[in-house]
């Protein structure tokens, strides 16, 4: 049998279902691994899973989000082995219900839009940064409930995911003004609140998200506008970054040079793809567990790991 390629499996899940989040794809990949490997002892099994998630975390760029899924899954497995002792039944449940997790995570988005509905009010002008499925779900739900609001969407360079967001919102009948990232400061006074998604939520309650979120949060705080993070709880990660440099993925050195690069956009490729917004800038997190203050995140994580 060929060696199971966890990275390829993970990427395949992401490709096949555009609605799936990175942590859920990671969980699905680990479940797939379980179903394809025979393990005789629980220790061997834990070892296999540990190796696979370590491989996944190191081989994929921007692994913060998927590591939330790996950790959640490991925790679940360990808990079931240690506390209930019926690992076999649990494995059966996991393998059998592989697709169920993806469905549940989509259901989480629905819960979020219900819990967050009251945050979208008539006449609001909402600033959205980059593309986020949770924010999209929430705004779509609000529009369906006949809330009339308008949205500024940032282009979100270098990925230009904002254009995708603007298109998706317009398709749902929501009036959108697409602005360049540099224009946030000039529109912030018109904005009533800021929504953004998250790739991962750190234990402090700060979020890791598409690059540019941090500067928008700083502007929002300066202008006294609420900054809400709309995210699923399976993106909570046990990391505690204190500064941008603490993110594993921004460790690569910036490239300073006096030479003009030959290719036109060569510099663009070197800029970080995510940044970290510290908890001080976040008004609240709208999650499937309820509306939490940033300090609520650590409480949920502690509950999961120590109870």
């Amino acid at each position: 049998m060929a060696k199971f390629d966890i990275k390829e499996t993970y990427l395949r899940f992401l490709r096949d279902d555009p609605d799936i989040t990175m942590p859920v794809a990671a969980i699905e990949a680990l479940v797939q691994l379980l179903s394809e490997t025979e393990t005789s002892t629980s220790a061997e099994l834990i070892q296999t899973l540990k190796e696979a998630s370590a491989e996944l975390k190191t081989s994929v760029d921007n692994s913060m989000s998927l590591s939330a899924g790996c950790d959640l899954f490991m925790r679940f497995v360990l808990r079931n082995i240690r506390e209930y002792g019926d690992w076999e039944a649990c494995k059966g449940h996991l393998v059998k219900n592989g697709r169920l997790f993806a469905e549940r995570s989509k259901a989480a988005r629905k819960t979020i839009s219900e819990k967050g509905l009251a945050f979208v009010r008539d006449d609001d002008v909402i600033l959205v940064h980059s593309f986020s499925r949770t924010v999209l779900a929430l705004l779509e739900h609000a529009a369906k409930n006949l809330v009339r609001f308008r949205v500024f969407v940032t282009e979100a360079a270098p990925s230009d995911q904002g254009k995708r967001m603007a298109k998706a919102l317009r398709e749902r009948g929501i009036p959108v003004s697409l602005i360049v990232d540099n224009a946030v400061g000039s529109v912030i006074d018109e904005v009533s609140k800021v929504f953004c998604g998250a790739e991962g939520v750190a234990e402090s309650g700060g979020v890791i998200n598409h690059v540019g979120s941090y500067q928008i949060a700083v502007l929002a705080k300066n202008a006294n506008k609420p900054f809400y993070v709309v995210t699923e709880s399976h993106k909570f990660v046990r990391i505690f970054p204190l500064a941008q440099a603490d993110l594993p993925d921004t460790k690569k050195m910036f490239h300073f040079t006096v030479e003009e690069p030959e290719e036109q956009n060569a510099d663009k490729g070197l800029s970080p793809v995510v940044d970290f917004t510290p908890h001080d800038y976040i008004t609240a997190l709208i999650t499937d567990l309820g509306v939490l203050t940033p300090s609520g995140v650590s409480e949920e994580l502690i509950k999961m790991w120590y109870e």
Partner: protein
Amino acid sequence: MSSQNRGDREIDIFVEQFISQLKRRQLSGSHAVALATAQLLLRFVSAARWNHIDSLVKDIRALGVRLVQTAPKEIACRNIVSRVLTLIREEQHGHKAENGGLSGSMLGLLEKNDKKEEVLDKAALRQANRDIRPYIIEGIQDLIDEVANIEENIAKMSVDEIHDNQIILTPTPASETVLLFLLKAARKRNFTVLVTEGFPNQIDAAHNMVEKLTKAGVEAIIIPDAAVYAVMSKVGRVIMGTSTVLANGGCLSSAGSALVCATATQHSTPVVVLTAIYKLSPVYPFDVPSMIEIGSSAQVADYSDSEIVEGFQVFNPLADYVPPEDIQIYNTNIGEFSPAFIYRIVLDHYSDAGNL
């Protein structure tokens, strides 16, 4: 049959009376409103007839919506109705909502709960068939006791909160809770209280508070509202009451308190808010102006002064919204909490079943 009809009529009359009292503001202030609402619901549940618990819940919810429409700014009224609905839901399922009202934990994504739910549903069905009226009534009685005996529990902390020779400032002279708190501390501590005048609505209350404090041997001084910034550098602690604590950790308090709290934050002076749990509300301050009641302008400009009345618009807001950033701690009857933790206590006390 006829006696039952009479029972229905009696409760209807009682409800109408209650509503007109709310409308005329004969009933006002969060404590009085909370107590009266709980007593009304007690009578309502005792008098109600229902085949299935859902119809009772429906009736109470309808009543709640009516009360809230009558007095949208008396949030204590809404809180009590929500608490009672949550309580009925808990009785119905025979257990406290798991995970303190949160809709699951992070591991919920992976857990197999379909089977468990089914079992629960069966248990719920059995529970629903038993007569839970006595349990509901008992629960409401407990709630009434909680509301009635609240001040004692809050005042317990007063000696720890106030040091000897400290200068305390309070912007809410009308608050009974603050008065009791200070009086309790006065038995063991020697301190000075500055009371803001609270023009125009609270002048009488301020005089009243200072009089009572002075009688108890506390040095109490009334200061004009404009002097708050000037004295803040000498103040050791701001202690205030509130009418409603909101789910984001902010609160509504008497007009002028937002200014005091902002000034205190500027001077790094701690702000302590005294509150009972029944004042905690699941409401978020999305639309602050709609939560603030506007009082009579005659307090500011006399109607007999025709020049002013004709020439100006006069506003007299009765309340202020204090944002969570300006509050250090909430001192409640069940302990002390930071504003960032308030959402959790709200989730513990209210479930989705309590939504009106």
